[in-house]
């Protein structure tokens, strides 16, 4: 039998987050709440004496499937706006009515069924393995073929053929010179043997700071120093 307190907890952490599918604006929030739903379902499986399926649920759904969803969300841009303009008039209410009707229909049909509950528990992995690899061995084989086909299909669908020839390194260098960029590396920041830090500009032989040696990011953040004090130190050293 099922512990009622545990059941209501599982019902709360599956139904409430799954409502975000209907009402949450951002797709990332939906994905994270579906992760919670999957964990709740895994708890339900373990409560129903199916520990193997509970663990598989966590590994496959929260671990693989939902993370794949998050990857794709990041890939297509998390801030894709959903347009709320309805192409079919009153689509929202029709959808709510249809789904609600389906739910009411299912629940009322289940309520009319009388069931007797056996007390035998069958969820141990050994027994599942015995059934999987004896009676359903052909299904397992074809599922393996299906998974490989799906992987190849995903590769084919996401493959982008190269439209132009790949540029060689020599061509890239020539292109840079043609544009007029400096072909030589920028000088490194820091004053040799005196102050070896990223926020100090390099000094040229005359002791003037070379601004180009500093990182642009640090300049924008006002985290750089001018090299004047080090120039003074160098000149002092020369006098001695």
């Amino acid at each position, binding site marked *: 039998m099922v512990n*009622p307190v545990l059941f209501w907890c599982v019902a709360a952490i599956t139904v409430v987050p799954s409502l975000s599918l*209907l009402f949450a604006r951002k797709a990332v929030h939906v994905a994270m709440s579906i992760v919670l739903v999957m964990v709740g379902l895994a708890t339900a499986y373990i409560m129903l004496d199916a520990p193997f399926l509970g663990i598989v649920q966590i590994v496959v759904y929260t671990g693989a499937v939902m993370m794949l969803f998050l990857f794709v969300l990041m890939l297509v841009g998390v801030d894709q706006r959903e347009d709320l303009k309805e192409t079919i008039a009153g689509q929202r209410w029709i*959808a*709510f009515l249809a789904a609600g009707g389906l739910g009411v229909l*299912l629940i009322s049909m289940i309520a009319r069924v009388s069931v007797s509950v056996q007390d035998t528990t069958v969820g141990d992995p050994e027994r*599942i393995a015995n059934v999987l690899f004896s009676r*359903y061995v052909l299904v397992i084989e074809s599922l393996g073929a299906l998974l490989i086909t799906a992987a190849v299909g*995903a590769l084919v669908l996401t493959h982008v053929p190269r439209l132009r020839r790949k540029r060689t390194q020599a061509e890239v260098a020539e292109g840079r010179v043609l544009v007029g960029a400096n072909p030589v590396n920028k000088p490194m920041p820091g004053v040799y043997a005196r102050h070896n830090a990223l926020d100090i500009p390099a000094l040229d032989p005359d002791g003037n700071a070379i601004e180009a040696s500093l990182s642009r990011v640090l300049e924008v953040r006002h985290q750089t120093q001018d090299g004047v004090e080090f120039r003074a130190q160098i000149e002092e050293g020369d006098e001695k």
Partner: protein
Amino acid sequence: MSPINFVYLASILFAIGSAAVLLRRNAIIAFMGVELMLNAANLSLVAFSRMHGQVDGQVMAFFVMVVAAAEVVVGLAIIIAVFRARQSISLDEPAELRG
């Protein structure tokens, strides 16, 4: 408390998932609704397996999980292909295909 309560829970989750598929325009969210429906079916299979004391329901749920994993891979690949072609994953955009 009888395991039949889990079947009620599964039908509620199934209804929520189908509402999301009908309602949302974002392809990824609609796809998550499909996932929720598959999981609701799984939950009822496991509950039936517990009620009848037989392991076949759990085996079926396992098969559903494998097929769902394959389906997610291909579905998300299609979403990425559509996004590359149209810079959008709205489910209303393909309606423009109509002449």
